[in-house]
């Protein structure tokens, strides 16, 4: 009974073959950065909690955070925080009904990436200057 299908029906996009558009990558990134930011706020609490204790305890935590690897992670967190913040504002505009046109959604996505990158660099420039 089973007969091979010969008609050319459209298939739903298969993730291993379909090239995701930029907006799709940005959407996935919103969730991924959200998870990363949960780790960032946990790190913030660890830092504050250790500062509420003895100087020795704080210095141990601060040495890890202040190492080159710690700073790399912190720079990553500024990127994820700012990206999630910018893209979150983009979502808030969608929630009230603005920015749904394909070109608008693409442009606002690129703006989010640019602003997130710029804010991260500015933050670290401020840190280097002070």
């Amino acid at each position, binding site marked *: 009974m089973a007969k091979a299908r010969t008609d050319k029906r459209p298939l739903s996009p298969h993730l291993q073959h379909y090239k995701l558009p930029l907006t799709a990558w940005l959407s996935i990134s919103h969730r991924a950065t959200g998870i990363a930011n949960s780790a960032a706020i946990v790190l913030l609490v660890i830092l504050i909690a250790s*500062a509420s204790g003895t*100087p020795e305890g704080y*210095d141990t935590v601060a040495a890890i955070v202040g190492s080159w690897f710690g700073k790399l992670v912190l720079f990553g967190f500024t990127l994820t925080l700012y990206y999630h*913040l910018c893209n*979150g504002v983009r*979502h*808030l505009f969608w929630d009230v009904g603005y920015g749904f046109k394909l070109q608008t959604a693409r442009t606002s996505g690129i703006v989010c990436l640019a602003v997130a990158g710029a804010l991260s660099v500015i933050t670290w420039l*401020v840190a280097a200057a*002070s």
Partner: protein
Amino acid sequence: MSHQRTPLKQVKGLGSAKEGTSHFWAQRLSAMALVPLILWLCFSIASLPGMDYVTLREWLSHPFTAVMMILLIVAGFFHARLGLQEVAIDYMGGHASRTIAFVAITFLAAIMAVTGVFSVMRIAFAG
């Protein structure tokens, strides 16, 4: 619309999750609060002359810093809990594993938030 729905259900409009739009709204509300709070956090820490014990404590013991930090910790973990709950709903199939994830996420968020708020207060009130 459908005649299967009772008038009461139409009025309450809570849908299949029995929560209505409360999750959606709570996430947006905390998102709006976090926009200024995160900008404040990043630029304040960047502006600190150093990250040593004394400098950090001195900064945290300012009333404005302490209040902003407590707001950020509360709004941050509230928002994180809602977001992680959504991730669990999307990727976890089983009812049991999903429930365990909800409990774990909620407890961890509460523990971390209270630890954070308590630590800020401990530094602030120590002067």
